[in-house]
C-alpha cells in the first residue's frame, strides 16, 4: 500500500505541474497577438459576419483557424456500408464524459461495455460476454490489439490520448473475409488523427474525486512541404473501485505513455510511421497457486505491463479507384507479476492489399498477410505452458469482388479469406453481401458469412491450477487443461439492415442478426476423488480434483436487433438513442459460461443528449442501461446474475473560443453498482466528479 500511495502522489504532482504550464503558455501567446499583429489575426474578430470573410485575402483565409466538424463526410460514407457499422467521431468523444477509451464504446448500439474492475473491461457484441472476449478484433491504425495468447484485449493498454483519435469505427458481426480469424462478433477500428490535422499544441489536465488524475500533452509540427509529425505524452492515475461492502477494492492503476506519428503526403502516396511506448502498473485481483503448499493465495497482483510498438503504413494511389497498401508493424508486450509469472510477446506483422476496377461493374480487392507471434512464459506459478516458448505464424490471402448489378441500385459483394493458423491449419471465411439503394435516402443490405475463432495459445497448451475457495465438503482443486486437438469455433452469421432518413433531422439505422454457432470452445469438467486421479496433470494430494478441459461443443443460436436513432431537432441540440435486443436458444446455455463467455443480456439502451446553450457553453448527458445478465458455471458453483444497472453521466463544457476549454462532469451519478461478476472480484465503480482544463493552439 505504501508503494501505491507514492505512485499516486507522483501522478498528482505531475498533473499540477502540467496545469501550471498549461495556464502560462497560452497567455503569453495572447499577449503576443494583441501587441504585435494587425494583419491576419484581425480577420476573425468576434461579431464578424460570414459576408466579411469574402473580403479577406486568400492568405488570410488560408490562415484562419477553423472549428472542424466534417460531419457531412462521415455520415455520407456510411450510407452504402453492407454491415452493421457505427462511427464514433471526435465530436462524439468531446461530448461524452468518458475518461477512458473503453468507456466511449457505450454509445455504440449492440455493444455491452461492463467494467470488471478499475482497470479491466468486458466489451462484447452479440453474446459471449467475458473479460476475455475472444470473438472481437480491436485494431489501432491497423495494428491488432487482440492477444492470441489468451484470446482477448487488455483495454487499459489502449487508453490512448482521446484528443488525438480521429474516429472509432465499430462493425458488429463477422469480418473474417477482410480481417481474418477472430473477427466473429465485431471489429473495433481505432483510427488516430493524421499528424497533418493534429498540428500545434494540445494540452489537457484532469482531476476527479474518485482518485483520477490525468495530464496529456501533444505537439504537432511540420518538417517539410508534405511532411508532418506529432509527439505526445500522457500520464494517468485511476483510483480504486469499491467492494460491495464499501471497502477499497485495491484495483487502482497508473499508466504512462508516449509516442509519435509522422505522415508524409506526396502527390500519389501516403506514408505513416508511428510508435508508442506504454508503462502500466495495474493492481489486479488474482490468485497464485503455490505448488508446494497446494494453496492458492488470493490477493492483489501488482502487474507491470510494458508495451512498445512501431508501425509503418504506405498507400500508393494509382487513381481514385485503385490503390495499394502495405502495412508493417512490430509489437512487444512484457507482463510481469511480482510473484513470478512473466509473459513476453513479440508480434511481427506484414499485410499487402490492392484494390482496382476490373471493368465498369467489378471492383476487386485482394490481399496477403503474414503474422508471427513469439512468446515466452517463464517462471510459472499458476499457469504452466507446454511448451514454455513458441514461435507461431499465421498467413493468409483474401479476394473480394464488388459487383454493380444495377448501376446506383443494386450491388453484390462476394469474397473469401483463406488462412493458415498454427492450431487448426487452413480455414475458409467466405461472405456474400447484397446492397439495394432504391433512392438517395434508403438503403437495405443483407449478408451471410462464415467466420471462425482460432483456439488461443492457452486453450491449446496451458495447465492452470487453482485451489478453489470452497472447503465444504472438503478441499477442491481445479485444473484447467488446454487441448491440442481443438477445432476452430465455427459460426455462420445471417444479417440484414436498413438505413434511412425519416426526416432531414432524424436518421435511423437498424440491423438484425442471427448467429448459428456450429462449434464453441468451452470447458467440460470431470471430477475425481483422491487417489483416483488421472495421470496428467501432475497429481495433487487433495480431496477432490475437478479437471476441466477445453472442448468443442455445438453452440446453438444467438439472434437480435440493434437500433440507432440520431435526431438533431435544432442546430443546437443533438440527441442519440441506441437500443439492442439479444435473444438465444436453450442450447446456448450449455456452452455459454464463465469460461467461454456468458449469454448476452436481453436489453441494452443508451441515450445521449447534447445542448449548445450558447456557442461557448454545452451541456451533455448520457444514460446507459443494461438488463440482467446471467452467469453460468458448468460446475454449478458460481451461477449468478448481474442485476440490471445504469450508468448516468452529466457534464458541461465551456469553450473560450481562444482555444481554452473547461469541463466539469459528474459520473456514475445513479450510484455504485456491479457491472460484472467474478468470484475473485467484486469491484464496483463509484460516483465521481471531475474537472478538466484543455488548451489548444
Amino acid at each position, binding site marked *: 500500500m505504501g508503494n501505491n500511495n507514492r505512485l499516486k502522489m507522483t501522478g*498528482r504532482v505531475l498533473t*499540477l505541474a502540467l*496545469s501550471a504550464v498549461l*495556464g502560462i503558455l497560452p*497567455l503569453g501567446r*495572447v499577449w503576443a*497577438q*494583441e501587441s504585435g499583429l494587425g494583419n491576419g*489575426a484581425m480577420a*476573425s*474578430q*468576434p461579431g464578424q*459576419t*460570414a*459576408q466579411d*470573410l*469574402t473580403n*479577406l485575402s*486568400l492568405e488570410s*483565409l*488560408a490562415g*484562419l*483557424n*477553423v*472549428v*472542424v*466538424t466534417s460531419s*457531412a*463526410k462521415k455520415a*455520407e*460514407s456510411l450510407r452504402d456500408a453492407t454491415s452493421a457499422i457505427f462511427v464514433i467521431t471526435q465530436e462524439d468523444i468531446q461530448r461524452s464524459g468518458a475518461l477512458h477509451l473503453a468507456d466511449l464504446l457505450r454509445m455504440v448500439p449492440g455493444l455491452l461495455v461492463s467494467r470488471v474492475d478499475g482497470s479491466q473491461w468486458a466489451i462484447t457484441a452479440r453474446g459471449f460476454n467475458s473479460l476475455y472476449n475472444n470473438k472481437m478484433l480491436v485494431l489501432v491504425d491497423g495494428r491488432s490489439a487482440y492477444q492470441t495468447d489468451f484470446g482477448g484485449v487488455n483495454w487499459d493498454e489502449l487508453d490512448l490520448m482521446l484528443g488525438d483519435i480521429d474516429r472509432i469505427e465499430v462493425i458488429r458481426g463477422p469480418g473474417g473475409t477482410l480481417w481474418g480469424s477472430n473477427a466473429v462478433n465485431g471489429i473495433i477500428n481505432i483510427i488516430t488523427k493524421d499528424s*497533418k*490535422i493534429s*498540428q*500545434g499544441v494540445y494540452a489537457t*489536465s484532469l*482531476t*476527479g*474525486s474518485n*482518485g483520477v*488524475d490525468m495530464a496529456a500533452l501533444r505537439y*504537432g509540427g*511540420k518538417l517539410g512541404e508534405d511532411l*508532418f509529425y506529432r509527439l505526445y505524452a500522457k500520464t494517468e492515475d485511476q483510483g480504486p473501485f469499491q467492494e460491495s461492502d464499501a471497502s477499497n477494492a485495491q484495483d487502482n492503476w497508473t499508466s504512462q505513455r508516449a509516442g509519435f506519428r509522422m505522415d508524409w503526403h506526396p*502527390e*500519389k502516396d501516403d506514408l505513416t510511421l508511428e510508435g508508442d511506448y506504454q508503462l502500466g502498473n495495474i493492481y489486479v485481483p488474482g490468485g497464485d497457486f503455490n505448488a508446494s503448499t497446494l494453496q492458492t493465495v488470493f490477493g492483489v497482483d501488482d502487474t507491470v505491463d510494458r508495451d512498445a510498438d512501431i508501425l509503418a503504413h504506405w498507400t500508393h*494511389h494509382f*487513381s*481514385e*479507384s485503385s490503390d495499394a497498401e502495405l502495412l508493417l508493424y512490430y509489437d512487444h508486450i512484457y507482463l510481469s507479476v511480482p510473484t513470478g509469472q512473466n509473459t513476453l510477446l513479440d508480434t511481427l506483422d506484414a499485410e499487402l492489399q490492392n484494390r482496382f476496377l476490373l471493368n465498369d461493374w467489378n471492383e476487386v480487392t485482394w490481399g496477403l498477410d503474414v503474422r508471427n507471434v513469439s512468446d515466452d512464459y517463464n517462471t510459472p506459478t499458476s499457469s504452466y505452458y507446454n511448451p514454455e516458448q513458441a514461435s507461431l505464424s499465421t498467413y493468409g490471402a483474401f479476394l473480394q469482388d464488388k459487383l454493380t448489378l444495377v448501376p*446506383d441500385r443494386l450491388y453484390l459483394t462476394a469474397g473469401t479469406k483463406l488462412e493458415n493458423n498454427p492450431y487448426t491449419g487452413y480455414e475458409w471465411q467466405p461472405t456474400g453481401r447484397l446492397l439495394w439503394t432504391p433512392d*438517395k435516402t434508403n438503403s437495405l443490405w443483407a449478408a451471410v458469412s462464415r467466420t471462425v475463432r482460432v483456439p488461443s495459445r492457452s486453450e491449446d497448451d496451458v495447465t492452470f491450477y487453482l485451489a478453489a475457495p470452497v472447503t465444504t465438503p472438503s478441499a477442491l482443486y481445479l485444473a484447467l487443461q488446454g487441448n491440442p486437438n481443438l477445432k476452430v469455433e465455427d459460426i455462420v452469421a445471417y444479417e440484414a439492415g436498413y438505413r434511412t432518413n425519416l426526416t432531414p433531422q432524424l436518421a435511423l439505422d437498424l440491423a438484425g442478426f442471427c448467429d448459428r454457432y456450429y462449434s464453441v470452445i468451452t470447458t467440460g469438467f470431470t471430477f475425481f476423488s483422491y487417489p483416483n486421479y488421472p495421470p496428467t496433470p501432475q497429481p495433487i494430494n487433495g480431496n477432490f480434483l475437478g479437471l476441466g478441459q477445453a472442448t468443442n461443443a455445438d453452440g446453438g443460436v444467438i439472434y437480435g436487433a440493434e437500433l440507432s436513432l440520431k435526431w438533431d431537432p435544432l442546430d443546437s441540440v443533438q440527441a442519440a438513442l441506441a437500443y439492442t435486443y439479444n435473444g438465444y436458444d436453450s442450447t446456448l446455455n450449455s456452452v455459454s459460461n464463465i469460461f467461454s463467455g456468458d449469454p448476452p443480456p436481453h436489453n441494452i439502451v443508451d441515450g445521449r443528449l447534447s445542448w449548445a446553450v450558447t456557442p461557448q457553453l454545452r451541456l451533455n448527458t448520457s444514460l446507459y442501461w443494461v438488463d440482467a445478465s446471467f452467469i453460468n458455471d458448468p460446475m454449478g458453483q458460481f451461477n449468478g446474475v448481474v442485476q440490471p444497472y445504469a450508468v448516468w453521466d452529466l457534464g458541461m463544457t465551456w469553450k*473560450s*473560443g*481562444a*482555444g*481554452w476549454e473547461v469541463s466539469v462532469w459528474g459520473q456514475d451519478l445513479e450510484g455504485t453498482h456491479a457491472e460484472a461478476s467474478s468470484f475473485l472480484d467484486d469491484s464496483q465503480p463509484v460516483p465521481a*466528479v471531475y474537472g478538466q*482544463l484543455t488548451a*489548444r493552439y
Partner: protein
Amino acid sequence: MSTLKTLGFLAVLGLTLWPGGHASRAQEVSEYTVKAAYLVNFVKFITWPDKVYDDDQGAIVIGILGDDPFGATLDDMVKGRFIEGHIVLVRRFASYDETQKGSLRKCHLLFIAYSEKDRLRDILKAVQGSPVLTVSEIERFPLAGGMIQFDQEGQRITLDINPAQAQKAGLTLSSKLLQIAKIYRTE
C-alpha cells in the same frame, strides 16, 4: 480531501489566467463558413473564357451538387452583391442521378459534395470539356481529374489544385491562387 483541493486549485488557476477579458483574441470560425468564403473568392481569381450566359444575364453560377454542407451561409455571402462585376447565383442539385447533365455544364463553379463520392467519375465526365471549375472535399480529388480540393492542415483549410485540369477546361487560375495551394501534376 486532497482531490477537492486539487480541483479548487485548478479552478483558481483557470480563473486567474482566463483570457476572457482580452476580447480581441482570434476567434474560431466554422469549417464550412471558411469553405464557402473560398468558393466566393475563387470567382475573383479565376478567368472564364468568353461565353454567353443567355439565361442568367451575365451571372456567375455556383452549383452545389449533392448534400449541401453550407446551408444559408453561402447565400448570405453572395446576396445583393456584385463580385468582379457579376451577380452570383447559387444553384442546388439534390444528386447527380436526379440532375440534367446540361444544367451542370452551365455552372461556372461546381462544388461536388461528399454524398456524390461514388458518382465522381460520371460527374467529372459530364462536365468535361466545359469551362466548369470543379471543387470538392472528396479525398484525392485532383488525382481523380478534379481541379480544386479543400484539404486540412492542423486547424486550417488548405487547397490542393490540379492546374492542368483547369487549363484543359479553358480556365485561367491566378498565380495568387496557385501560390497558396499544393499543386498536383497528373499529366
